[in-house]
């Protein structure tokens, strides 16, 4: 655990809680491009009727949006570079939140367990 006394001289730096190096704007651009591509991909598959009808449609969209979600959180919200405490503060609740959504969908019969 980092203690305050070692950090008093770098209050600014410490205040941001940086642990690893901060991303630069070239990272930001790349991230933006990737996000745009994924979004375009999502909308594109939405317009392919045969794909929409297939079993892959929903999982693909879920994976793509999860990817976007993760990228924004890791890079724009610099969780990847920040103090691990923040990671815990975010992922813990996120996991509980997602588990809650999934359980509710089961309970309301939107997801069905196929035995066997």
């Amino acid at each position, binding site marked *: *655990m980092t*203690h*305050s*006394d070692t950090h008093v001289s770098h209050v600014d730096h410490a205040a941001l809680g940086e642990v690893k190096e901060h991303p630069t704007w070239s990272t930001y651009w790349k991230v933006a491009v990737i996000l745009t591509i994924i979004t375009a991909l999502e909308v594109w598959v939405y317009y392919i009727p045969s794909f929409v009808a297939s079993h892959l449609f929903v999982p693909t969209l879920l994976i793509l949006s999860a990817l976007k979600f993760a990228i924004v959180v890791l890079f724009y919200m610099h969780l990847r570079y920040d103090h691990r*405490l923040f990671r815990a503060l975010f992922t*813990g*609740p996120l996991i*509980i*939140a997602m*588990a*809650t959504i999934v*359980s*509710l969908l*089961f*309970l*309301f019969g939107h997801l069905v*367990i196929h035995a066997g």
Partner: protein
Amino acid sequence: MATTAAAPPYVSTHEASNTGIWSWLTTVDHKRIGALYLVTALTFFMIGGFEAEIIRAQLMHPNGTLVSADTYNQLFTMHGTTMIFLAVMPLSAAFFNFLIPLQIGARDVAFPRLNAFSYWVYLFGGLFINASWLIGAAPNGGWFGYAPLTTMQFNPGLNIDFWVIGLQILGVSSLAAAFNFITTIINMRAPGMQLMRMPMFTWMAFIVQFLLILAFPVITIALVFLQFDRFFGTQFYELAAGADPLLWQHLFWIFGHPEVYILILPAFGLVSEVLPTFSGKPLFGYPVMVYSGMLIAFLGFGVWAHHMFAVGMGPIADSVFGVTTLLIGIPTGVKIFNWIFTMWGGNVRFTVACKFAIALLALFTIGGISGVMHASPPADLQQTDSYFIVAHFHYVLFGGSMMGIFAGIYYYFPKITGRFLSEKLGNWHFWLTFIGMNLTFFPMHFSGLAGMPRRIYRYDAGQGFDVYNLISSYGAYLLGFATLLFVWNFIRSWRKGAKAGHNPWNAPSLEWSLPSPPPDYNFAAIPTVTSRYPLWDHKGNVVDYHDGDQVKSAKELGIPMPLSTIKPLFTALFMTLMFAGLLFIHKHNWPMAYTFMFGGAAGMVISLYSWLLSPLE
């Protein structure tokens, strides 16, 4: 006999500027806010208890006629709502406020003004809900307000409006406080106060804050739906639109079950402070106590549907929720045994505080066991919505939460006020409460198994319920009498109690190194902590204050103190007014509705900005 040469002298804590009504309205001192919470919550406890007394008087004999059906329904709804949201949660908050900074060696919480805001929101929210009594339209849908009974279609009065809006207001208070305490505990610990050196109360408080920030948003949304349905004509619980009433139930209990651990974990924390002190032994299995607390909280998010075994969820869901519920017995049992083994091998001093703590062990276990009986879905079908459930939750809530809180009050009163509560009156209080509590709630197991449904304002003679209800009512009167003794003790001792030194119980944690009551800045010098029990181990530079030492003011010591401010109070007041404006929508009084809502919102934003833009110190 200070342990370091640099022992700072202290001065009397009550300076001229620290007295008078105005100083209370503007205070940002966590200890004074804690005291406000304590007194307010005890008042609400009395109100909730008074409602319970009327309930018991009505049910004393078959076909009671003291109150009408409608009044009765308002009474039990308000009793449950008051006890849970206005008494036990804020009583816990009183201890969070008072203790957390002291226990971790901090001068205050992370956001002192936000802290004041939380209190005022709580007070106004509580007054708001109770104002419904004045117009004879108190909430009447039960404390979990099941839709569709709470929708406009079936409940067109103002009753539920008060409830929905009131809970919404109280939610703001709890959430604001929770963010504050999370930050405080993470960030304001004194050097060396590692997480695994924190006193157990602070640990349990820490866990509870996470339960709060994760559980309250869910009820907020459930209430938003209901609020929108009632005021703006949405369809969330509208049967004709195909709504599913189970939506409310799920959302409510996703909040509701973590809520019961919000109610009990602080009491567990208090007991974990009291028992080691009076056994003269450290807490047995400290790490396990921490982990079991975490596990209880975590599992607490996966069991909510055990309140819904009768709704027909199907065998898979029933099995899953039944089994996860059973699992919670394991970490809770670990706690019980660790407490017992804290006393094992010790020199147990039976002070009143210690007796209440022991009573928690004895009585919570009973409530826990009946909880496990509910956790078996087929068996629960015969228990749910009967007095057996009422017995369960009063054993865990009164036998658990309230006993723990009483233990905490007797234990910390000297620290809060500088004076002891009378042990003699306290002993009377304890024994009458202990007997009264069992007399009231134990027979409810029997009336439940004998087939008595809950929430009935009357029952017929000859159903096998009479005797149990008679005993319950006598027990409740006894409890009421015991509580009056306590109140008398509390009021008298605050002014006239025997003076307590800084560490009257010979306790191990940091708060006991300070004068009683502690000065506004808490620690003259921030201590460095090197052990879990600094005052027992005499390690680190913890300054062990002794009576008779000179005490200096913050100014003399050059400690910057936050400025008192009225702004949080105004922000809270305007927010409450803004919410209250909704009531006029119900009456189609648009001018008033708009005045209140927009006026309140504007006032809130202005006072918020002026608060945020003014310096803290």
